[in-house]
Structure formats: structure tokens, C-alpha cells
């Protein structure tokens, strides 16, 4: 690598902060495409967030300072989690051992505030969304740890860069592991970023809602920050998947288009899923989320076979 670190840091930061809007835009465009509509401009999410930043807020009289603080916490924690996550080149801005633990706990800190801020409004709808969101996290998180933990065992690399070594160092097994792990992370993405079939981000007024109903009372700057943060979360998880798929040690001029291409394909896939199938019934959502755990278990067993030849 003969590119300076500063350039990579700037590149990663740029992707982290700007890509969310385009990913959201592409998803919307895809949905419109499958629906036979022309759809809104790809820049629409940018306009939305800018508009929200200009607007004043309406705050519930039941709320306290928690409600006011939470959007800031959610935004900053997602940003910091993004600093730990690998982007282009498998390069995290903060490259540290056991980064995936710190990554998920920082996101957990944001989630904690998201949950309590929703409960702060004394609204029954938001309570419902909160309780479901908290419940799904308990299923997703252990599976994530299983996958990342076993990848550490496989690659003997404690940093997030271990993800990039799966395919390049371990041949056929690596490919199998990579496929399983990426599917698991895709499900995690659908759950965490509240996409169909787990949740539907386009409506607010359904009693089957999860994440979207939690921000029912947020408006103005608060809503802008939260929307931006959830877009960032999506980009972060997408780039984890991209890092699993992309081989290690490519040139930047090949890698960058590939990386962005994968982001684009994933966004297109999410849009297609949303256009193709309806949201699952709440009781089936649990089953859907548990699929991630089974993928995680497959990953562990594959890695155990590879390492110990059982």
C-alpha cells in the first residue's frame, strides 16, 4: 500500500457519512422501478434530511431531557462504531484488537438511548416498538458474536481485518464460510436497519411496526439525526459484508469500484426484497431472525472442521 493513511481515513469517513443517503436513494429507486414507477430522485434522502435540519421541533410534554439528548447519542455512537468498522481495504480508521466487541457495545450504547427515549414519550405505540426492538436485539447479537468470534479463531487476527482474510487464506472452506457469514450479516442488516420483511420503514401507523414506530414523536433536527444514523448503520453493515466478499490485497483503483459496487448491489437487493415480498407477521419475524443464528452455527461448525478436522 503506497497510499497514505490520511487519504484512506478521509475516504472512509466520506463513505461513512455520505454513502447512507445514496444507499437509501437507491433502495427507493429500486422499489419504484419494480413498481413500474419513475420514483423520486436518488438525491431525495439528502433533500429530506436538509429540510428536517431547517425545521423546528414539536416535543411531547411528557418527555424529559433524555428525549432531547438521545438523537445526539444515537448519531455519535453510530459514527464512532463506523470508525471501528472496516471500509475500503479492510481498513478501519481505528484499527484495534477485539474491535468487533467495542463496535457492538458502542452500538448498544446508542440503542440503550434509543430505547429509553422512545419510552420517554409515554406513548403506547412507541412502547410497543421499543419492546420488540429490544427483543430482536437479544437474538441478533449472540449470532453476530458467534460469527465474528469464530472468524477470529480462523484467521488468528483479532482486528476486523480478519474478515477480509477468510476467502483469500482458506480456499473452498473460506468461500463457504464467507457465503454463510454474509447471509447472516444480511439478515442482521434487515433486522437492525428495520427493512422488509422484518419491518417496513415507509409507514408509521401500523401496529406491527418495530423500529420506525419508536421515532414517532421525533421531529426536526432529531429526526434528521436519527435518519442519518440509521443510514450510516446500514452502510457499516454493508461494508462488513463487502469486506467478507472482497479478496485481500487488491489495488485501490480496482478495490474502490468493487466496494462501491457491492454497496450498490446490496442496496438494489434490499429494494428488490422490499418490492417482492410483504412484511412478515410478527410471530414469523422471530423465526426469520433465528435464521441468522442457524447461519452462525453453520459458520462455527465449518470453521471447527477446518481448524480441527473433526
Amino acid at each position: 500500500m503506497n497510499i497514505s493513511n490520511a487519504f484512506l481515513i478521509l475516504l472512509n469517513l466520506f463513505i461513512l457519512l455520505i454513502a447512507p443517503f445514496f444507499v437509501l436513494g437507491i433502495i427507493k429507486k429500486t422499489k419504484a422501478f419494480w413498481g413500474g414507477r419513475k420514483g423520486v430522485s436518488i438525491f431525495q434522502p439528502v433533500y429530506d434530511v436538509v429540510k428536517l435540519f431547517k425545521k423546528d421541533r414539536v416535543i411531547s410534554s411528557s418527555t424529559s431531557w433524555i428525549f432531547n439528548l438521545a438523537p445526539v447519542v444515537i448519531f455519535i455512537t453510530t459514527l464512532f462504531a463506523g470508525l471501528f468498522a472496516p471500509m475500503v481495504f479492510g481498513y478501519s480508521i481505528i484499527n484495534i484488537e477485539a474491535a468487533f466487541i467495542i463496535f457492538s457495545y458502542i452500538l448498544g450504547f446508542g440503542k440503550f438511548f434509543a430505547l429509553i427515549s422512545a419510552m420517554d414519550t409515554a406513548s403506547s405505540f412507541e412502547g410497543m416498538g421499543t419492546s420488540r426492538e429490544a427483543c430482536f436485539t437479544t437474538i441478533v447479537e449472540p449470532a453476530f458474536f458467534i460469527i465474528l468470534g469464530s472468524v477470529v479463531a480462523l484467521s488468528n487476527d483479532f482486528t476486523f481485518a480478519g474478515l477480509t482474510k477468510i476467502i483469500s487464506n482458506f480456499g473452498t472452506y473460506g468461500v463457504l464460510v464467507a457465503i454463510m457469514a454474509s447471509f447472516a450479516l444480511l439478515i442482521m442488516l434487515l433486522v437492525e436497519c428495520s427493512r422488509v420483511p422484518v419491518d417496513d420503514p415507509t409507514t408509521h401507523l401500523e401496529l406491527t411496526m418495530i423500529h420506525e414506530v419508536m421515532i414517532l414523536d421525533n421531529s426536526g433536527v432529531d429526526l434528521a439525526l436519527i435518519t442519518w444514523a440509521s443510514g450510516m448503520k446500514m452502510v457499516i453493515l454493508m461494508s462488513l459484508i463487502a469486506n467478507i466478499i472482497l479478496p485481500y490485497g487488491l489495488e485501490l483503483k480496482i478495490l474502490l469500484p468493487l466496494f462501491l459496487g457491492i454497496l450498490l448491489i446490496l442496496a438494489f437487493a434490499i429494494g428488490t426484497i422490499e418490492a417482492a415480498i410483504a412484511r412478515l407477521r410478527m410471530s414469523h419475524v422471530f423465526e426469520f431472525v433465528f435464521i441468522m443464528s442457524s447461519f452462525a452455527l453453520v459458520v462455527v461448525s465449518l470453521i471447527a472442521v477446518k481448524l480441527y478436522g473433526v
Partner: protein
Amino acid sequence: MENYFIGILILFFCGFFTLLFKNQALKIKLVSIFSILASIFVIKTSIDVFLNGEKTNVIDFGGIVGNVSFVVDNLSAFFMLFISIMSTLAILYSNGYLASYIKKGKDVSAHCVFLPLLVAAMLGVVVIQNAFFFLIVWEIMSLASFFLVLFEHEKKEVLSAGIKYLVFMHVSVIFIIIAFALLAILSGSLDFIEFKQAIFLNQDMADIIFILAFIGFGIKAGFILFHNWLPDAHPAAPSHVSAIMSGVMIKTGIYGILRILDIIEVPSINVGYFVLIISIITALYGVLYAIGQSDIKRLLAYSTIENVGIIGIGISIGMLGLAYGCYPVAILGFAGGILHILNHSIFKELLFMAAGSIYIKTHTRELEKLGGLIKKMPKTAILFLIASIAICALPPFNGFISEFFIYFAMLKGLTFNNLSMFIFFILALSSLALVGTMAILCFTKAFSVAFLGEARDECSKNVDKDVSKNMIMPMGVLACFIALIGLFPKHVLNFIMLPVSNFVDEIEISNITNVVQNISYIFFTMLICIVILFAFKIFLKNKYQKHTTWGCGYNKINPHMQYSASSYVSPFISMLKPLFKRVVDIKKPKTIFPKDAHFELHIEDVEEEYFLKSILKSTEKFFARFEKMQNGNIQQYITYGLIFLVLALVGVVLIG
């Protein structure tokens, strides 16, 4: 005389000294002053030990007892330090907490005797290295805490909880006595140092002794299968006592386990996995039931079980590291476990104190009746929030540091190239993650139902102001500890490594402490960013209108429509239905204009219901057979006596 002797003696006698005074408030004040004094002496000794190495004092009691050694090594010094600081803070808090009881004319004399006595006994437990004296002091500790639990003895549930606690403690003592007796037979002495040599010569006995001691001390610590005293005794006791019991006293159980480990030196692999499995189950079970509770102190008690499980996971990983000879894993595991002992005692004490403050103001522990307290008790709310974040092990506070160490130990173990270690550590890794997320579920529930939203009942609506300053102060100190350990872990870790050095000889840690310190700096930056962005938001875009919460067009919203504690967790509980025993008390609305309806959900302990009760039933059945013997007939009793004498005679003849 050593400094810490003076401290322990002050604590031992100051309770009795307060009996001379009549004024109830003065008694508590005297106890607090003496305990501050005593803790200064104790802290001085522990710092001395940390700097200059262990202190051994042998006192000859003569007679059959003989020499009793009092040893303060790094492990004891660590425990002494946090026992004295934490207990003193809880006693200071009790000044404010008991004031409202004293106002109602409650007599606190007995309470003031047993409170310092408990602390003295706990300090005694961690320094005495003689099995016989250890058991005596251990018993004093159990009894003193038993009387402290019985503070509101006029209530029936308090009495039954107290009795339950007493029974459990004595079951625990039986196992400890058996373990010590085996050791004493092997070594021919009661001294722990002799035990060490005896075990060294008889390695085959090590496993059985460790498991016996683990069960015995584990009951005290709250490991699963015999944890049932915790969720009953903690709500029954006054809050500062629950704080001491949960924050400090159960840690003496952990101390016992660590001390036995110190005696055994290198545990076997099987024992390591046994402790790991038990700890994982304990952690999961504890947090699972904590989620189900709606009594705030019961919830905290179950969460104590969870945290004991986490401590156990750390220690067992350390044990496995020792057993496999993989020292980095051992160091990280023990460091995580021991640091979590300290961390848990800090935030759990803070949580119990905050729960006590809620109880003092609202006279209820029922979460379903609380709500909106953040506006009336802002300071308590912030303190509770800090402790909740810390107990969920979220950055940037202290809980994260200890769990991170445990995680890191697991990752190191995963790369150790051993299949069973790989499988069990993956299991432990995912369980710890699961425990973490469930803790988030549990504490977002506790915090948001109690403090946020609107008041659900008159009792929380009528709260006028926050609790008094002398209750807030000790809580504030604890919150400072939480933040300091979270933000500057390097120094704390260097200090934690001293007790760890009891177990692992080669300590090479500078690398990992630097990593942790860097992580903390990142968190610190994150906090600053949050503050800056929040300030920006407040100064630049703070135009807003107040409006009632949006009710989807419905505008006759009332506080009862909020999500309650049981509805908040209901998706989770219905997902794991078979693991709970749900007791539902329901009265459905009838007729067209329903007058009243009622719904109440209680989660009962499955283990108690199916395991403990069946054991009790079978023992009861067995002993019922002997009921005939006690029939009140004097002649028959004399016959028993005769039979006994004859048997004794035969025995003597046969043996002699």
C-alpha cells in the same frame, strides 16, 4: 498491633457502644463515624500490603486452638479495600434512609449493633487463614446479616425471607465444613498454608474438595440451583443492607472460591469447564428472571445473580487458562473476573441505593406503580441511569472494561488451538453477548418504567422533591467511581493485577492495559463529541413547541395507556415461554360499559418450583417417618436413652 486489627475491633465493638445512647439518630451517626475511622485503618493496611508485600501475623490462642494465622496477601488486601469502602458508603447512606423510619418511632438499636458487626465479620473472613476461626467468623457474618434482613420483622414476608436466608446459609456452611474437614484430614492442621502443601501432595483429592467448596461458597455468592435466597432476602431487607449484601457480602463467597483456588493452585480441566458451565447458566438464568420481575429490588437481586455468573465466567476462564498452561488467557480471565467483582459492587450498590430512594419517596417497590420520576427526582434519576448503563456493560463506564477483559480472554482462548476450548469459548462468547443484550432489555425497562413517561399511580404522582443530600452524596461518590474506572482503567488494572498475581506467576500486561486505556480515550472523545453536538443543538436549533404525545388521533390519553413493565417484556417472555412459570391474575372487562378490570402478571422461579420444592417434599416425606418417635411419652424416651447407652457401650467395647 496491626492497623487493620484496630479497624476490625472498632467495627466489632462500636455497635455495642451505641447501646449506651438513647437518641436513635445519634446511634446511626456514631456508627457512621466509627466506620469511617475503621475504614481509614483498614485502607492504610491494604495500601501498605500493595506496596510492601503481604503481612502475616500469628496469634497463639493456646489450648486446642493453638496458632491462628492472620494473613493479608494481595487478594485479601483487595477484598479488604473494597469491603471497607463500599460498606462505609452504604452506612453513610443509611443515615438518610433510616431517618424516615426513626421519624415514625422505629427502634434501630439492634440494627446499629449488627450493621458494623457484619462489616467486621466480612473483614475477618478475608484475613483469617485458619479453617476453624474462618467458620466462626463466617457464621457471625451470616447471622449478623440475618438480623439485618429482619429489620421490618413485623411483616410476614420479611420473616419468611429471613428464615429462608438462614436455612440456605447453613446448607452452604455444611459444604464448606466438609471441604475444610477433608483438607484438615489430609494436612493434619487447620492452617491454610498447610492445606496448600497437603493438596500439593494429594492432587487426586483436589477436584472433589474444590467442588464441595464451590457449592458451599457458591450458595453464598448466588450461583444457580441454590440462589433462591437472593431474590427473597434482598427486597425484604432495608435498601442499605441489600446494598451491602449484594454489593459486598456475596463477594465473600467469591473470595472463598478464589481462596480455595489459591490453595489448589492448578485446577484440573474438568473442574474449569464445570465452573464455566455453571457460571454461564447462572448468568443467563439471572438476567432472564431479572427481565421478568416487576418488583424493582427483586429485579436487582436477580441481576446480582447474573453478575455473579459473569464473574464466574471470568474466573473459570482464568482457571482453564491455568489448567491448559495458557497464561495470557489465565491473566485476562482472572483480571476480568476480579475487576468485575469490584465493578459490580459499585454499580449494584448504587442501584440498590437509588431503589431505596424511590421506596422512601413513593413507599412502593412495584414498577407498575411508578413513572415520570425523572422530573421529580432528577438527581436520583441520573445516578440510576449511570448505574444502569454501567451494569449493561456499555461504554464508557466501568462494566465495559471488565467484560472486555473477559471477552478478550475468550478470543485469546479461541486462538489457542484446542477443540474443546474452541467450542466452550464460542458458547461462552455468545452467552455473554446474550446476557449483555438481555441486561439492556432489563435495565431499559427498569429505568424507563420507573423514571420516564407519566406517573402510573398516585404514589409516584405525589412525590414532591428528591431525597435528602446525605442520601445523594454516597450515591454520587459511587457514580464517580463508575466514571473514573471507565475513563482511566489503566491504573485500576495495574492495581487489579496484584490480586491476579496470586494465581498466575508470569504477568506481562503492559500491552493490553495500554490497549484498554486507548479504548477509554476513544470513549472519552465520544462523550465529548456527544456533549458538543448536544450543545450545538441546544444553542442553534432549540426552537420547539410542546404538545401532548401523539396518540394517532386519539386525544384522551391517560397514563395507564403507557407500556408497563410487564408489557415491555412480553414479546421476550412469550418467545421463551417454557422457561418461565407465569402466574396471571386477571379480571376481564365484562358488560357493555365495563366498570373495572384487572391484570397482574408474576413470574415465578422455575428452579424453585420444580427443583427445590421437589427436594424439600421428598426430605419432608422421609423425615415424616420419624414423627412417631416424638410422641410425648416419657417411658418411651427413657427407652431411647437406654438403647443409646447400650449402643454406646457396645461401640466402645468394639473399638477399644
